[in-house]
């Protein structure tokens, strides 16, 4: 079996080391491989921004070999919680690594000056790029494209000002329209003095002989394009969920002060976005679905004359929730304008929107004033939020520097922790009930994608702590398998465990396919070990009072059940981590 190929780049010296690890193949790739490498490189006794802490980018054994195997896992020490973190992105990132001949890229050390890392199948360099420091994420990419050839077959990952300023809300922008979004990986890159990483995928790889592989590829491709399974994703896309969640009283509005606004949802629906703002679709490399929805912002920049500029901005359910309903905006163009601003600043859209929603309510309540902010924040005030986004990313004034650390961090300074909508990090857009709140608060990535808890809540299960925990643990295991391949989670209905085994067998890795359920459980446990090794205590994660005040279609959230569920899931997490030797 081919070993796992890892390129270790030492940023302090600009040197690199190629490692081939046969034993790492058992970790599959992606999440499993990232956790394995993290256990080798990371230092639990050091701070998140210690130069020795690694940033790991990992793909999986099926990357490029099958459709929708198109994601990359970024693992790092999070500035938000100081422990193991993962963030996932698509774009061209995964195929670029595949065709650079790498299963993983590991960055260690700290560059002495702001720099750009460039790797390819026959190239590695760390080059000074002080002229890029301070530049917005979009302009930065435009310049790098002029410097590095390979249009269409390269992937450029870079940070904005938020990453340079080490905000735990800083993301890494990937190509155009995609992101390693959450838990502050942009700050991890910024702390290493790295403005951008460019990967050129210029080499081909071998394929298995015989017709079995090509036939299986064609079958899966047909499932993805000819059946209804993926229709949602390429039609309205994830914004399709806005209306149904509002109807269920599960869509957060105005900093989660409301869960439904029947009078306003029409202007924030997926259909309304498509009708008024959708330009076209795009796709990650290797994915025929094309779920990326690109809208436009058109602005008159000379008020007295007909002079306009326009920009293209991608949108999805989560950014619309965070920078739309959470801030009580009422028009797609306004949401897209804010999305364009966070894109340039290199902020995670979800965290930025939820933090601004907290600040707005804090101002309404008089906890903070214009003397703190320099701005009169108000729900629906798009033009004020645009300025606020810049201030938050730059983090130069005292209030904005506190808010750039997160809504909960700012609440520690000013008060208002009860209504800071933070579940491990700023919430994702699901006010579906107890299971989701506990899942995001305790989940390994504090992501709505750690488990399908938002769906579990919507299925209206009876209150049963043991059943809910069984669901959370079991569903996470299935997702860990997919994120170790690394599949887009939108393809989870297509890539059953049996299908994944067929795929591995078809490319000559049948020995990895024998007991994928057991493998998933081991990888799940290893990830939790890494999380716990840095002092994570799932029992101690606060779930602010605002979440217990939520009223959904099922009635008020049950605070007692919420607490019981958190306790039980925390125990299950600890038990999981103990299942395999450390």
């Amino acid at each position, binding site marked *: 079996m081919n070993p796992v190929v890892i390129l270790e780049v030492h940023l302090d010296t600009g040197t690199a080391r190629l490692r081939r690890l046969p034993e790492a193949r058992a970790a599959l790739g992606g999440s499993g491989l990232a956790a394995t490498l993290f256990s080798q490189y990371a230092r639990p006794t050091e701070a998140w921004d210690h130069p020795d802490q690694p940033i790991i980018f990992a793909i999986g054994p099926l990357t490029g070999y099958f459709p929708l195997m198109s994601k990359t896992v970024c693992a790092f020490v999070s500035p938000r919680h100081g422990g193991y973190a993962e963030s996932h992105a698509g774009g061209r990132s995964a195929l670029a690594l595949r065709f650079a001949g790498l299963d993983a890229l590991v960055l260690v050390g700290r560059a002495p000056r702001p720099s750009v890392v460039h790797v390819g199948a026959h190239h590695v360099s760390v080059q000074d790029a002080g002229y890029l420091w301070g530049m917005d994420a979009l302009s930065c*990419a435009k310049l790098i494209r002029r410097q590095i050839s390979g249009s*269409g077959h390269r992937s450029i990952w870079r940070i904005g000002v938020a990453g340079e300023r080490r905000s735990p809300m800083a993301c890494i922008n990937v190509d*155009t329209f995609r992101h390693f979004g959450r838990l502050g990986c942009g700050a991890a890159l910024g702390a290493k003095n790295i403005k951008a990483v460019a990967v050129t995928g210029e080499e081909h*790889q071998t*394929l298995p002989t015989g017709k079995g592989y090509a036939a299986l590829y064609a079958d899966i491709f047909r499932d993805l394009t000819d059946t209804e399974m993926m229709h949602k994703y390429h039609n309205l896309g994830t914004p399709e969920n806005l209306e149904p969640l509002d109807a269920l009283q599960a869509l957060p509005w105005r900093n989660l002060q409301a869960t439904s606004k029947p009078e306003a949802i029409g202007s924030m629906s997926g259909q309304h976005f498509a009708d008024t703002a959708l330009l076209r679709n795009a796709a*990650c*490399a290797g994915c025929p679905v094309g779920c990326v929805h690109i809208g436009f912002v058109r602005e008159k920049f000379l008020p007295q004359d007909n002079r306009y500029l326009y920009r293209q901005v991608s949108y999805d359910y989560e950014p619309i929730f965070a920078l739309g309903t959470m801030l009580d905006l009422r028009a797609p163009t306004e949401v897209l304008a804010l999305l364009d601003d966070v894109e340039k600043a290199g902020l995670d859209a979800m965290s930025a929107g939820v933090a601004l929603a907290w600040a707005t309510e804090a101002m309404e309540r008089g906890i903070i004033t214009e003397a703190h902010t320099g701005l009169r924040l108000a729900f629906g005030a798009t033009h004020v939020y645009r300025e606020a986004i810049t201030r938050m990313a730059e983090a130069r004034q005292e209030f904005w520097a506190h808010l750039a650390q997160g809504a909960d961090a700012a609440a520690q300074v000013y008060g208002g922790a009860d209504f800071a909508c933070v579940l491990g990090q700023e919430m994702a857009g699901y006010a579906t009930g107890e299971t989701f709140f506990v899942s995001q608060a305790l989940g390994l990535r504090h992501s709505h994608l750690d488990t399908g808890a938002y769906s579990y809540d919507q299925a209206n299960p009876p209150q049963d702590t043991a059943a809910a925990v069984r669901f959370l643990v079991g569903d996470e295991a299935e997702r860990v398998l997919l994120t170790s391949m690394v599949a887009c989670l939108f393809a989870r209905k297509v890539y059953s465990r049996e299908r994944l085994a067929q795929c591995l067998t078809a490319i000559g890795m049948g020995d990895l396919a024998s007991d994928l359920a057991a493998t998933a459980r081991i990888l799940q446990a290893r990830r939790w070990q890494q999380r716990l090794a840095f002092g994570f205590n799932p029992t101690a994660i606060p779930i602010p009072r605002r979440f217990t005040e939520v009223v959904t279609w099922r009635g008020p959230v049950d605070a007692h059940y919420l607490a019981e569920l958190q306790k039980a899931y925390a125990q299950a997490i600890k038990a999981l981590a103990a299942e395999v030797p450390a």
Partner: protein
Amino acid sequence: MKRLVAARMDRCIGCHSCSLACARLVHKILSWEHAGIRISSSGGLTTGFQAEVCLACDPPPCAAACPTGSLKARPGGGVVRNKSLCIQCGQCVPACPVGAIAQDRAGDIYVCIHCGQCVPFCPHDCLELVEVGS
């Protein structure tokens, strides 16, 4: 005689499924670059995509540049390729006026043979195999 035409590239979403299909089915490798059709963007994804693919010149300048007869004019435009005659000199690459021929580090060349195996893998019908007459 059929000819591949990238007729509706304004629909392209940049998934590279065509290139991957050509590499997989024609050249028996995994690649998005070493294939008869390749997708590039014009400076980021905001400007859309273009296909680097043979336009079926008649007569084809790449065949004229080939010193060994590995590339020969194909009825209806473009070339037929006899791989066994190729000495990997790379003369055909700059001879192509639209950059449709790729060459890997080993010297092998990749040019569209208008077989149409990529067409069913385009999810937006950007590609078409058209009859051009013999």
